[in-house]
């Protein structure tokens, strides 16, 4: 961990050294636990079910690493004084980590690892109306993109640099909102409340537009405490970095449409194979 330059700049209004370390550890620990639990669950459930695909475990590990890189270590230290580094962290924590972790199908793994009673109870929770509202593309998009607008167009960004608790809450929100947004758009895990492809396509487009508009807005109107030069770099990174990850989301959504609308003869077959996969796995 490279903390020297962090200490150097943490004089004055910024979060002091000890609190900074504490915040980083508090944010990184849950991700580390998630990695351990996932691998453990894959190991346990392999004894009763067919082998859990290795690529899913790799997706999960990469996703967790992206998130950890954003909250602890050199990038997290730099993010306090360098807006571009902050934006890099935001892309990793709020977009790339959620995408990779969604591709790892964690809920499917949890459901097959738990015993029947617990799995049934969990699936009842997933079917409940609060989850249904939260998982709707429109709500998930508002939480995700709306949260970012709030962060960068108000004083929240400057306040977050001074207050440890706020710092932790914002980072947790960025990750969770990114994850809910991703799973509300592409269905890797079983989804009790499905929205139509057209609905998801329209909402995804508007949400991505909100992201692009915000990045140009940041370019032109730096948040408090950010220099013009850094805001321009950060805004462009947000714009183009977001594009790359959005392209994957769009591709996945369209590919799922392509598979779901395959011509009549094979539709029944596909659903049959899906059901039997489900029962096996």
């Amino acid at each position, binding site marked *: 961990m490279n903390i020297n330059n962090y200490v150097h700049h943490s004089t004055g209004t910024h979060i002091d050294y000890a609190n900074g370390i504490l915040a980083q550890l508090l944010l990184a620990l849950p991700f580390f636990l998630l990695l351990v639990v996932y691998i453990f669950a894959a190991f346990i459930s392999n004894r009763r079910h067919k082998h859990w695909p290795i690529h899913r475990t790799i997706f999960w590990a990469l996703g967790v690493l992206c998130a950890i890189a954003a909250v602890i270590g050199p990038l997290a230290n730099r993010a306090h004084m360098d807006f571009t580094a902050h934006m890099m962290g935001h892309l990793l924590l709020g977009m790339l980590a959620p995408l990779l972790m969604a591709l790892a199908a964690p809920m499917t793994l949890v459901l097959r690892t738990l015993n029947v009673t617990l799995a049934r109870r969990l699936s009842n929770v997933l079917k409940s109306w609060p989850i249904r509202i939260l998982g709707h593309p429109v709500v998930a998009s508002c939480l995700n993109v709306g949260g970012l607008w709030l962060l960068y167009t108000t004083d929240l960004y400057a306040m977050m640099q001074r207050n440890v608790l706020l710092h932790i809450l914002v980072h947790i929100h960025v990750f969770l909102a990114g994850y809910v947004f991703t799973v509300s758009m592409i269905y890797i895990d079983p989804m009790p409340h499905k929205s139509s492809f057209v609905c998801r396509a329209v909402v995804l487009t*508007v949400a991505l537009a909100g992201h692009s508009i915000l990045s140009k807005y940041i370019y032109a109107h730096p948040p408090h405490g950010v220099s013009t030069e850094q805001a321009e770099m950060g805004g462009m990174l947000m*714009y183009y970095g977001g594009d790359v990850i959005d392209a994957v989301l*769009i591709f996945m959504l369209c590919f799922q*449409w392509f598979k779901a*609308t395959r011509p009549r003869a094979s539709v029944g077959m596909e659903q049959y194979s899906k059901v039997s996969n489900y029962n096996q796995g």
Partner: protein
Amino acid sequence: MTAGKMNLKNPSHDATSSPYLARNLWSGFLLGLGLVAFIDEAVFHQLLHWHHFYDKSTTSIGLVSDGLFHAFSWFATVGSLFMLADLRRRNALRLTRWRGGVLLGAGIFQLYDGTIQHKLMRLHQIRYNVNLLPYDLTWNIIAIGMMIAGAILIIRARNDLQPPRETHSHEHQ
């Protein structure tokens, strides 16, 4: 998607049914739009550095329009290629009609970009520190040319609507 549903309801529909004709047009149209947006970004922003990421005189409605079209063109490019793949697996691709759609979509979006976005919303200009008139004229005349060519192809495809052939000789349509 409506096309898929209709086909399920009435399996006797073959590839000449109207849902797929519309999908041919839409697939082409969206790809044309996406291609122009992609060339705009890759060539004029990144390679030539003529366009600017942000122009101090950009209006807020310009920013919104740019963001919406940016996101939409990403989606249009990927979505239209999946639609093309869908038409091919259904053996319903009508190449003339599809090409007409590409040119029409490209032309309409380029004209919108060249007039509304560049001029009215002042998003950015084609190039800076030069006499803009020749650039603007070339830009918009090419756009109108593509629109006309696209319209001609679509009308021609409509005039000789024939049942699709098994082979890939769509050029004769």
